[in-house]
């Protein structure tokens, strides 16, 4: 299991060091600094073995988190734990920075004591942790409160405490998708997929039982067989094939496995209910058509057309097209029909920004790039043109069909809950080769 956990700043100074196992000595702290942080060549793996000791590291801005072990640990678990540790810290004191870590080091030690015992990760749900790791002391608690805490931390529903009350029962569902594309210069889709997340903010009283439904092809086809032919036939068209999905630990997985229904008791506040991935019938919101022409050895002509491909009534926002330029660029002239374009020498790219663009429109940019003559034999690698945008629909075609709330002990019903649903599609890695 994890033998120790260290946090360093960018200089390699150790900010937090907690050792769980006897086989990890103080020299491990230095070994990581010397061999990874200060390594002459950047390390090419997130797992490093130094003198029979394995180091796992992740970096958050300029802070290094390293877990150390001498055993054959579950590597996936260690990384998951490090991410979780980052989440917990963020939930407690915001951004992970040197300043925040130094100011909260006592809290961090307390957390590390709680969520890792002898190197074994324990309950690390922020909701539960916040009930008893407060930095305020817990002496004021009654016996009932104490046992409530412990049963929550160890219980089956570790993510939610009892006795939550809201005057207004309300929930928000955000369907957040990122659409990824790799397209050949000729416009052939090399790979495309959507990775989506359903994020829920729940402000519900008591211990509500929820059921979530979406236009999952498997569910709808099943219902279609069961009868109600008309409606099923209609909605069948809109159903989507989900390649795979994963759920927050509150979802009863065995139930999903057998009935494909998503039922759960949600944590309070914001959390990620599910993640999913689709590859079929993706709506690609934009098409990029590049044209690069080399005129002699010192000039490059670039023309890029973007076409929006969705309902004209919808508006895409925050559109940004990034056209890479060679390293030996000496000057650039740009003309664009819409938005603003600028050559950014430090990033070796022309960045073209458009605030808003409606569906089924087209826009164009053309640029002339002057090059310095070089002796460098190596050809310019032509990195792909990438794009960023945000659209108010789900490119996968996912639709939320229902989210039902049942709370048997309290007197509010499904109808009393105010529900909000919002769809946001963003670009993930959206690239077109040129």
């Amino acid at each position: 299991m994890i033998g120790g956990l260290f946090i360093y700043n960018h200089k390699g100074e150790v900010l937090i060091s907690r050792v769980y196992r006897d086989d990890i000595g103080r020299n491990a702290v230095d070994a990581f600094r010397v061999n990874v942080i200060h390594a002459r060549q950047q390390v090419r793996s997130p797992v490093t073995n130094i003198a029979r000791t394995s180091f796992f590291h992740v970096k958050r801005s300029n802070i290094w988190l390293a877990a150390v072990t001498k055993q054959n640990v579950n590597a996936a678990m260690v990384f998951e734990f490090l991410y979780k540790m980052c989440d917990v810290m963020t939930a407690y004191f915001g951004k992970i920075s040197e300043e925040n870590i130094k100011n909260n080091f006592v809290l961090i030690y307390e957390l590390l004591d709680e969520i890792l015992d002898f190197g074994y990760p324990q309950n690390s749900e922020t909701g539960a942790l916040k009930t008893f790791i407060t930095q305020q002391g817990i002496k004021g608690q009654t016996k009932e409160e104490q046992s409530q805490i412990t049963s929550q931390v160890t219980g089956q529903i570790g993510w939610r405490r009892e006795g939550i009350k809201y005057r207004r029962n309300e929930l928000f569902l955000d369907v957040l998708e990122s659409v990824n594309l790799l397209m050949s210069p000729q416009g052939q889709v090399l790979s495309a997929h959507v990775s989506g997340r359903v994020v829920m903010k729940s402000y519900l009283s008591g211990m509500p039982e929820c059921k979530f439904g979406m236009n999952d092809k498997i569910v709808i086809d099943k219902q279609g067989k069961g009868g109600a032919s008309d409606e099923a036939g209609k909605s069948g068209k809109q159903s989507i094939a989900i390649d795979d999905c994963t759920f927050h630990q509150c979802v009863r997985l065995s139930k999903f496995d057998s009935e494909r229904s998503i039922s759960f008791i949600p944590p309070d506040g914001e959390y990620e209910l599910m993640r999913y991935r689709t590859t079929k019938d993706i709506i690609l919101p934009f098409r990029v058509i590049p044209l690069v022409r080399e005129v002699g050895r010192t000039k490059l002509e670039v023309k890029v057309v973007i076409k929006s491909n969705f309902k004209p009534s919808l508006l895409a926002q925050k559109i940004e097209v990034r056209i890479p330029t060679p390293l030996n660029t000496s000057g650039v002239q740009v003309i664009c029909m819409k938005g603003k374009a600028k050559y950014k020498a430090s990033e070796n790219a022309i960045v073209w920004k458009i605030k808003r663009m409606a569906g089924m429109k087209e826009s164009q940019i053309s640029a002339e790039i002057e090059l310095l003559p070089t002796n460098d034999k190596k050809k310019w690698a032509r990195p792909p043109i990438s794009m960023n945008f945000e659209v108010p629909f789900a490119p996968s075609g996912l639709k939320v069909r229902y989210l039902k709330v049942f709370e048997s002990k309290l007197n509010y019903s499904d109808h009393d809950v105010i529900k909000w649903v919002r769809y946001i599609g963003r670009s993930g890695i959206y690239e077109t080769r040129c």
Partner: protein
Amino acid sequence: MCDFPFFSLVCTGEIFELKAELNSDKKEKKKEAVKKVIASMTVGKDVSALFPDVVNCMQTDNLELKKLVYLYLMNYAKSQPDMAIMAVNTFVKDCEDPNPLIRALAVRTMGCIRVDKITEYLCEPLRKCLKDEDPYVRKTAAVCVAKLHDINAQLVEDQGFLDTLKDLISDSNPMVVANAVAALSEIAESHPNSNLLDLNPQTINKLLTALNECTEWGQIFILDCLANYTPRDDRESQSICERVTPRLSHANSAVVLSAVKVLMKFMEMLPKDLDYYGTLLKKLAPPLVTLLSAEPELQYVALRNINLIVQRRPEILKHEMKVFFVKYNDPIYVKLEKLDIMIRLASQANIAQVLAELKEYATEVDVDFVRKAVRAIGRCAIKVEQSAERCVSTLLDLIQTKVNYVVQEAIVVIKDIFRKYPNKYESVIATLCENLDSLDEPEARAAMIWIVGEYAERIDNADELLESFLEGFHDESTQVQLQLLTAIVKLFLKKPTETQELVQQVLSLATQDSDNPDLRDRGYIYWRLLSTDPVAAKEVVLAEKPLISEETDLIEPTLLEELICHIGTLASVYHKPPSAFVEGSRGVQHKRLPGSAGSGESADSPDTGSAAGVSEAPPAVIPSQGDLLGDLLNLDLTPPTTSGPPPAPSSGMQMGAMDLLGGGLDSLVGLLHRTDTPQSPQLSHQSPSPPDYSPTEVGPGDHAGPVKARSPAMGAGFGAPPTAMPASFPPPVSGGLDDLFDLGGSVGMPMGAYSPPKSIWLPAMKAKGLEISGTFARRAGVIQMEMTLTNKAMSIMTDFAIQFNRNSFGLAPAGPLQVLTPVGPNQSIEVALPLSTVGPVMKMEPLTNLQVAVKNNIDVFYFSSQYPISMLFVEDGKMERQVFLATWKDIPNDNEAQFQIKDCHLNSDAASSKLQGSNVFTIAKRTVEGQDMLYQSMKLTNGIWVLAELRVQAGNPNYTVTCISKERCVHQGSSYRSNMLEF
């Protein structure tokens, strides 16, 4: 003031100041002071002096303060065990506290204090806490048992904690179950044979129930534990699989991977014709693909595992090629892994896409990645025959880019393509030859030379091309030299008339002017082959080449099986069994996949039985290079065995032969004479680095093509069954005598000074992965310590240095240890350290014992070795006859020692000339009653003379040696020295 008050203190007076603050009456001040102490501790400052003051703060109802004090205690208790006892009372009291959080905190902390006296006090509270009414306390106590076991295993067993822990598996609270499972698994690991985790269907059922309810981490513990279970039959296996599959949808990748591990393992037991088997296979693909959208570090872990899964069951992901396409922004470690998997999944169906991608990658920036991409194109050509033509043309396009490393990499893979598809793509040779001048890497040069040699008959100016390489022969790396030698010999066999001069030239370069034994050996073998039987030479050198394998870099099947059992863990990331990187007994036991159920016949064993997928995998590897080599040696050397010792080498070889005999040939000669022993041990000790040597003479073998057959089994191959390997290192020195007399067989050959074969001085186990083997030799009047440093650890070793302890003859390094380059993992490096004899002297027991300390960037290691005294004999040890006689008489009788050498079949002349090689000089010879008496002298580096009389009786294999010396002290080592003297 500094922004961060707790991190800013440094000065010397601070300890004093802190002391005052810790003893302050004000609670707030106390707390701040403890915080400062912890901050200093974090930065690595020693604040142990404050121990009593900090412990005094423990008695508090402020939980935050208490936790800080505990943190301090855990750090320093070990260094101050007596003081730590002061804390015990508070712990014991806290374990009775009404607040469960405090009870748990106390038991948790107590387990972390590794002081024997404290552990004694821990037992009672722990027993209570294991049965506490509060689950939070129980789950903490469960882990505490593992902690205690780590400190004192016997105590845990005696106190019966293990049984209590087992009972916790049936606890009502899922988290308690999970922690108990984790603790038990860990304890069981250090007791491989115990039946601690008594997994039976009932407990499995309990675990599976808890699996649905506990935290994500608990699920991982339980799944990892389940993976160790072997179901009784396929039905049980299926029912467990059914209950584990829902975990594949968990958001935590570690849960998913652990579930995959359980399924991969239990699937082995399912009959292949079962519907469920197919369903399961289909269910595995999506979650594996989903792992690739996780954070990059997890992607890396997932990809390393997918690499294993794809080798074991290629059918799972065969349609998922696209998800492994490299994204421009992927971190380099993800890119490289994806590339590996792309090649594994490449098939006729998707090859067009793959090739288009690879071509794209070959224009990227990262050099390593580009190289790997180019190599991948070659591997595709070899794997999918239909694509070979397209691959070759892609490679030619890449060569046209003239980017240096791309060109070189392309040439290396084109060589392999030629191997796979002979007589098909030779038209491109012209293009390749154009780039001859730009090749500066050894591998590429070697590949190009191979191509020229192989197709010498079609390249008009092949001799010119090869000759141009020959000019700088000595500046080339060994790889290129060897290849050049072979290529020219091939050329000669194809065009004997025009190239005679060239072949002469290369053979003499290789045999006379080179100090590389591999090269000389190969040179000699070719030379002898060509001079004795050109027809045989043609058969050997231009033999039909065995097919190269389609699949490349496959992990050896038993290792693969073991790694599949370790999916998700570090072992699967390193692709090494846990024993390779874990110290001690933990996790060293090898895990295996269960045998398949159903028939249970051998035909259905997991290796052969895993359906179409793997059965096509056992590739047509090169048929045992070793055998070929064995044949070659027989071919060359067998006739002489029957007709006595081999004829003296022709005069042209004489020079090289001198020290060749000292090193390389002795084993070959031994081979000839020790007919009763199998030839393998000798063969193997001649090659301290088998991988370099093994393919040498086997013309075709050295082009193992893309196979790069460096798996351990192959490397050690070399004609010797692997079991013979241990025999290759004779026991140190004392065995030297035997070896010498083996050597004795080679009568009439001029001899170099004897030096025993290398033996292991420092095993890797004792030196954190550094293995040192070595020997001593006297070369041209200089004593040398010749060592092979092998790095068996996984990190690079640098900064080597060496020192000797004082010793009997004042041996000391004459210069620093010359290890200029860092030694990478699994690399070894040869060093010769010249020794002087002017160091400090101290008598050792035994006399020739030498204690050595070697330092590297990791640590300092000590070992001792014994050197043969013969290396201390100086060249001017020949005494005047008169002086000899006088001295002999001078020395009192009790300075005399006598002993016998058994089983030596040399005549006196031969023995004398042999001994002279080791600076043992014969002064006179007498023959009395059929007995030859040799009078010999030798002089040690410290100026002491030793005189000896050697009696050899014809027909009697036993020699009698009497030796005397003026100095008694030297003499006391005689029993040892005797061993050395007589050769």
